[in-house]
């Protein structure tokens, strides 16, 4: 806990300085709030509209979590396939890398044309944005397993699947968590973006509506909520890691 505080105060200090500077500039220069609202105003208006913001946060959170669950399952499936089959590695991996060059900006509206304004297209955008770092890291983790360890397992008569379960999966865990952290930070942004392209509810469509109504302060408030969600999910990965990899803590002593 103490180490957490120690690592938190420097970024918080920087943030405070930036926000302070912003506040000072807006108040002294008398900037129109529809152009740039002061942080204080964003907080105040965000609080006033908290019920509305919360109502819009829920669908975004739902899309994020469902999309990420789908991405998680797909990443494991593909990474295991890549690990077990050299043919899949040769045939699939280059395409996966190439798929990362497709701009989501172009795909998101198409998904809405295909699947409507409901939950599914948003889930798919989240999945598309988060799948690759997760799958690639996991596959790299499997591949980085100590070769001597595999040799030992083979000499003991362990089959491929058993060796995979006993050694390759646990030794890939640090890679997996690295990938998880990268991809989870994309997840909320992916959902917000998908809503931007067309939705009935959610933070993305809320931002768009508030922008059109010149409520820049509420756009910022929604951005702050998005950031808070991302940070919370990012933090959750550390908690999960502590639960799943208990030896990392014990080893530190």
């Amino acid at each position, binding site marked *: 806990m103490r180490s957490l505080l120690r690592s938190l105060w420097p970024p918080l200090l920087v943030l405070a300085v930036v926000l302070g500077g912003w506040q000072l500039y807006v108040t002294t220069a008398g900037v129109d709030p529809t152009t740039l609202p002061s942080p204080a105003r964003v907080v105040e208006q965000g609080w006033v509209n908290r019920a509305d913001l919360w109502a819009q946060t829920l669908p975004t959170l739902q899309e994020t979590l469902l999309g990420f669950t789908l991405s998680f399952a797909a990443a494991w499936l593909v990474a295991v396939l890549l690990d077990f089959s050299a043919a899949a590695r040769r045939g699939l991996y280059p395409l996966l890398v190439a798929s990362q060059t497709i701009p989501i900006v172009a795909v998101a509206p198409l998904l809405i044309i295909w699947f409507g304004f409901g939950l599914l297209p948003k889930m798919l955008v989240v999945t598309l944005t988060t799948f690759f770092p997760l799958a690639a890291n996991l596959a790299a983790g499997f591949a980085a397993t100590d070769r001597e360890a595999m040799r030992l397992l083979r000499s003991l*008569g362990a089959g491929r699947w058993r060796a995979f379960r006993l050694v390759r999966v646990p030794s890939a865990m640090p890679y997996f968590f690295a990938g998880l952290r990268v991809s989870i930070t994309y997840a909320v942004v992916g959902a917000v973006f998908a809503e931007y392209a067309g939705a009935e509810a959610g933070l993305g469509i809320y931002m768009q509506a508030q922008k059109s109504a010149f409520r820049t302060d509420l756009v910022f408030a929604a951005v702050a909520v998005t950031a808070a969600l991302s940070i919370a999910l990012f933090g959750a990965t550390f908690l999960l890691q502590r639960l799943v990899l208990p030896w990392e803590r*014990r080893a530190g002593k």
Partner: protein
Amino acid sequence: MSSLHIEDVGKSFDDLEVLRDLRLSVEPGEFAAVIGPSGSGKSTLFNLVSGLDRPTSGRVLVEGEPASVASGKVAYMPQKDLLFPWRTVLDNTALGLEAQGVRKKEARARADALFADFGLDGFQQAYPSQLSGGMRQRAALLRTVVLERPVLLLDEPFGALDSLTRTEMQLWLAGMWQRHRWTVVLVTHDIREAVLLADTVHVLSRRPATVVRRVEVPLARPRGADDFTAPGFTATEQIVLEALRGPTAVRTP
């Protein structure tokens, strides 16, 4: 019937001839050391005996049967301890049994029964990172011994230890062998280690490797620290060294 019988074995990888006409026999209850210059094909020999690889010519028989992973006659202890950081010491020592398909509970019970004998009692629930180098090697040996296979194959087990710990471990292994009389094939490039522990020392030539000399160690059992300074010890060391350096070695006056 010999525990291990290597009959005129040759092994080549493409154009590289690693072993040629190698002959070596180990009787039940014998402690054999194989010593050779670096790059002389010790690990190739290892793979053949553990059944991970097949000879190009000749035969490798373990208790009269061609060496194979499936026959489960050789337990192999690799150079690195290969204790997995995510498993407790107990679970690490049970890993070999688990890899063979023994149920986890039974594997743990069988490994646990040996902890006291290996000087590891009380460390069952520790993680490997909490153990000293010597303890890690003892745990790795326990993982090998608990399999109760007829031949133990030890690949430079103490190579990574500092010299004081190494000496302690060698004396410890001499004591353990005295009580259990395992059939051991120890691959090493430490002459002192070979002479202290083994009944017979088999000296390999440079590549393509063959056994140039079989040295019987004339020291009585049980052996201990006093043997390091016994006249028979230094004389045997001398013979092994001469055989290792070969006829082409530069003589120093």
